[in-house]
């Protein structure tokens, strides 16, 4: 067992994803570098990772999000950029969490459409979102009867 001393203790890291017809990750990175003021910015294929003190990161995120509000998405990240336990340079392939991002980024244009349509929606309109199916599934008692009928 070796002692563990965290890097970048006391910082937060946030992902910034961009899926916009008007802005690429490198455009976003240039804007972020302009306002970074000591905060670490890492450009990625999908957007950015921003690491620094929470207030500074939130300030930068707010400014970046304002560039294209319905096409820029933000979430927290546990690890800091380049962490050898997570960085794919060390792992030799996509890191595990990437598959979740890949799946949701495939749907993100639907969310962008939803965000764009919010202002035109009447306040009293009841939304009808895709909801889980309520179709009844096989009852455990019925399953038991099937098993017993096969055994006899």
């Amino acid at each position, binding site marked *: *067992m*070796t*002692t*563990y*001393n*965290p890097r*970048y*203790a*006391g*910082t*937060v*890291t946030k*992902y910034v*994803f961009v899926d916009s017809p008007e802005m690429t990750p490198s455009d976003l990175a240039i804007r972020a570098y302009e306002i970074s003021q000591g905060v670490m910015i890492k450009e990625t294929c999908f957007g950015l990772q921003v690491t620094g003190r929470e207030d500074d990161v939130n300030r930068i995120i707010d400014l970046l999000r304002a560039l294209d509000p319905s096409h820029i*998405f*933000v*979430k*927290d*990240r*546990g*690890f*800091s950029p380049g*962490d050898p*336990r*997570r960085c794919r340079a060390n792992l030799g392939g996509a890191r*595990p*969490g990437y*598959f*979740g*991002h890949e*799946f*949701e*980024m495939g*749907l*993100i*244009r*639907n*969310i*962008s*459409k*939803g*965000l764009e*349509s*919010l202002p035109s*929606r009447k306040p009293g*309109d009841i*939304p*009808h*979102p*895709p*909801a*889980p199916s309520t179709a009844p599934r096989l009852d455990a008692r019925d399953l038991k009867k099937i098993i017993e009928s096969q055994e006899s």
Partner: protein
Amino acid sequence: MAKVFLYPTTSLILSDLVARFGHSPLSAALQIRERIQTPGLESPPLQITPEEPKKGLKWAAVEVPSGVRGRMSLYGPMIDEAEAAIIINNADFSFGCMGCARTNELIKYLVRKRDIPVLDLEYPRNEEEGVEFVAAIKRFLDALHGGSA
């Protein structure tokens, strides 16, 4: 500002929408960050130590596999802390690194057992569903304390 538990706990879409509409998302990253930034003994890759399955005993019985208990030590405190929850049900990627099927069932059960507002959804498959999906989340969040309703 209400603390909103997300399921899947790693969801980018939910995390963004909850923060965008003025609330505080409770996502797995916060728990991972806490462990990653705490000095101690090296325990890669997630700094999950043998202590975590013991902490998980608060939410899962001793005969439950340690993997479930270890995961519950991450998700359990967030469920206890949550003032509302949003659950997306057809999240296939939540089975795998993020959690095993039993953990996922236990999370949903514990969320429903708590008397907090819960919004049940499915991922939107097209733009029309996306419009309704976002509107439903906004309406749900606005009705929470600290929301804009």
